[in-house]
């Protein structure tokens, strides 16, 4: 989990305050007269330092070690199957759904699948358990997660009414729309599995 990154930030090396020898804005600018500034202590004015607080990132080597540890722990947990119920964020039918096993989804679309067909939802954005989460950028690999679903029901939708009415103008139009039959309306997502392991970046 990337919350480890927050801890990693706090455990970083001790802060060192370097005296700002140049105005921070002149570091970026390419003015020809920048050589005329003297090396010394700059007075604290409204423009002598950036408006955001000074940030100090932790030591990259230590952080890389920490990241490798975390990834190894998560790999172990996945390999030994120590996770309970998994959830996945899946992009399907131009919407994102947060899905677990034995979950029902209702969509208003046509699918070329019949009732009882097993479908694999491939665009997985995120997978998580109680102790770890895998965040995809933007998608997770297909060999990493497997989300399957069964088409349960295909029905017409309830009649949605489209009406226009202007008072005192004798203008009204009414149209009732039921999305045509043979569109799947319910799914059941089942059996999340993360078969392969993560590799440390």
């Amino acid at each position, binding site marked *: *989990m*990337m*919350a480890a*990154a*927050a801890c990693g*930030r706090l455990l970083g090396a001790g802060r060192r305050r370097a005296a700002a020898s140049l105005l*921070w804005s002149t*570091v*970026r600018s390419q003015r020809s007269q920048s050589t005329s500034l003297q090396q010394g202590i700059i007075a604290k004015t409204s423009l002598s330092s*950036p408006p*955001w607080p000074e*940030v100090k*990132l932790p030591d*990259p080597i230590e*952080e*890389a070690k920490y*990241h490798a540890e975390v990834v190894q722990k998560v790999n172990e947990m996945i390999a030994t199957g120590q996770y309970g119920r998994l*959830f996945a*964020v899946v992009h399907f039918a131009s919407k*994102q759904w*947060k899905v677990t096993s034995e979950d029902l989804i209702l969509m208003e679309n046509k699918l070329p699948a019949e009732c009882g067909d097993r479908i694999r939802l491939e665009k997985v*954005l*995120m997978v*998580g358990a*109680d102790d770890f*989460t895998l*965040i*995809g*950028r*933007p998608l997770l690999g297909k060999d990493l997660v497997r989300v399957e679903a069964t088409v349960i029901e295909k029905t017409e939708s309830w009649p*949605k*009414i*489209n*009406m*226009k*009415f202007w008072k005192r103008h004798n203008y*009204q139009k*009414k149209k009732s729309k039921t999305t045509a039959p043979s569109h799947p309306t319910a799914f059941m997502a089942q059996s999340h599995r993360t078969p392969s392991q993560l590799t440390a*970046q």
Partner: protein
Amino acid sequence: MVLLSLPCWLRSRLTDRFWRVQAVLKHARHFRGRKNRCFKLAIRSVQRAFVKTTKARRKKKSFMRELWITRIEAASLEHGLKYPAFIGNLLKCQVDLNRKMLADLAIYEPKTFKSLAALAQRRRQEGFLAALGDGKEPEGIFSRTVHHY
């Protein structure tokens, strides 16, 4: 003898008035007062109800988006980040969760949301450092973009 014009005493009369009235009243049965029983009052309420449904279907989308944004803002403030910083930095990290998902995660998966907030905060700090440095590729680890080609 050929009949050249239809006799005036032949009139056509409506036979299914009852069912036409019931088709309107069935949409008014859950209303309050006489407009759930009397046709003249019901037809006005039912027309207004249908028009409101059509207009609300468009407004529902923007209303829900506002609601999600409010919830995400509240959740990210709990973790010390403002909403624009949170969303902007998540997008820069190529995390494509939409606001509906982020709001649901904030409610049902608090640990995941905390890690997303930490990710956004870290990316923000790397952005600040990159703003101070040269115009080269940012050094930060979380600022590295993933190339999918």
